[in-house]
């Protein structure tokens, strides 16, 4: 290494350290302009300094740190769940689908929406051999509510469409549950606009191989309800 290259190394080190005098900074700038490959050396020296981070001995933090992080993580993902599990789809498409479900299976609830023959995707879904249809009917004070769920068990997708549901207070959320062997399994949550909701929802993995006997919609007091505690507002009819 020549004296000149040592000088350049020191200038680069000074640059990385942030302790160059103005005239030194100018000199380095000129050198880099003449030899752009010096930029690589700057990066290597930066990396070398950064490796100082690995000098201290690793120390395990107290267990409370991990507990606090886990709690935050779980709360964060619970709050994100509606965004990741449900995807709004167009009203036109979905109401057609809900209508098709009702018209083909039950003629119930959504018959004020006409099936549009050009909507081949809906027809295709309904023609699948492994499609299941559930009509939903209101109960008690929500007797005017109605809706339907179409499930494509091969594609593990479903569409939910409901109407005439009452508006909920701030923290309340509608939850859809699948009844499997008498137990209610979380399926999805949804919000309504003017009493209506239409959502395309992926089938939860725990329902892939389950025999769903019926569906129930409840109004839960909090979004994170792991099991239904709120009143049933819609139940599927046979």
């Amino acid at each position: 290494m020549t004296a000149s290259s040592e000088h350049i190394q020191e200038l680069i080190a000074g640059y990385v350290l942030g302790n160059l005098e103005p005239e030194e900074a100018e000199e380095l700038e000129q050198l880099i302009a003449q030899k752009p490959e010096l930029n690589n050396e700057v990066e290597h020296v930066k990396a070398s300094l950064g490796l100082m981070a690995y000098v201290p001995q690793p120390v395990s933090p107290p267990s409370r740190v991990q507990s606090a992080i886990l709690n935050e993580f779980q709360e964060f993902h619970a709050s994100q769940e509606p965004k990741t599990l449900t995807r709004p789809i167009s009203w036109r498409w979905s109401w057609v689908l809900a209508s098709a479900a009702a018209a083909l299976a039950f003629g119930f609830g959504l018959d004020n929406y006409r099936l549009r023959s050009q909507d081949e995707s809906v027809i295709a879904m309904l023609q699948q051999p492994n499609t299941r249809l559930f009509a939903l009917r209101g109960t008690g004070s929500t007797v005017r509510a109605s809706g339907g769920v179409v499930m494509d068990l091969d594609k593990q997708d479903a569409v939910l469409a409901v109407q005439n549901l009452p508006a909920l207070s701030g923290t309340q959320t509608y939850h859809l549950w699948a009844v499997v062997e008498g137990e209610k399994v979380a399926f999805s949550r949804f919000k309504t606009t003017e009493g209506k909701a239409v959502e395309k929802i992926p089938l939860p993995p725990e329902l892939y191989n389950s025999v769903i006997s019926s569906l129930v919609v409840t109004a839960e007091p909090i979004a994170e309800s792991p099991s239904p505690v709120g009143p049933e507002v819609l139940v599927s009819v046979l």
Partner: protein
Amino acid sequence: MNPDEPGQKQTTPTDRQLFQDLKAGQTSALNALYERYAPIVYGLALQILKDAQEAEDVTQDIFISLCKDEHDPTRGSLGSYVTTLTRSGSIDKMRARGGKLKLLEHWGQIMPLDTGPSSLMEQVSFEERSERVREALGQIPEDQRQALELVYFGGFSQVEIAQQYKVPLGTVKSWLRLGLVKLRQQLQSSLGNNGSI
């Protein structure tokens, strides 16, 4: 032992795999990343801050930001990402105490390894990486090494070091520069490559 070694994928998930699982909400991925990096993060924060509670806070903040941020640090190196965050977080804490942080603050913005997971240093385990850096640092003349450590881990300014050692400011600047040049040379030598770290 090495999380990024392709041949060990079946038994040891890579940082990228764990990060993707973390984003999918898998608690097991968070636990694995925590086991892998929390001691490094906490150890570094403790070294800089000398305060267990503040080091705990930094550690917690970093892992929570890993959980929530949209940014994908595994496009580079997760180890680099978390150590950079650790230094930045620790510097913030020190700034809150009113310490002098000019040089340390500047260094806080430097990524430990900007060259990504393909670089040689990312292909060795943390223990090995740590050992090589300590060895390299051990080869540096005492005054230069101490100057680097005082600035990096102690938050001392160059002026404060000059006063402590009763030497001109220019001498301290020179110690730091020469120390860094030697550190770079030693690391290059210990890795046996032609320049890439």
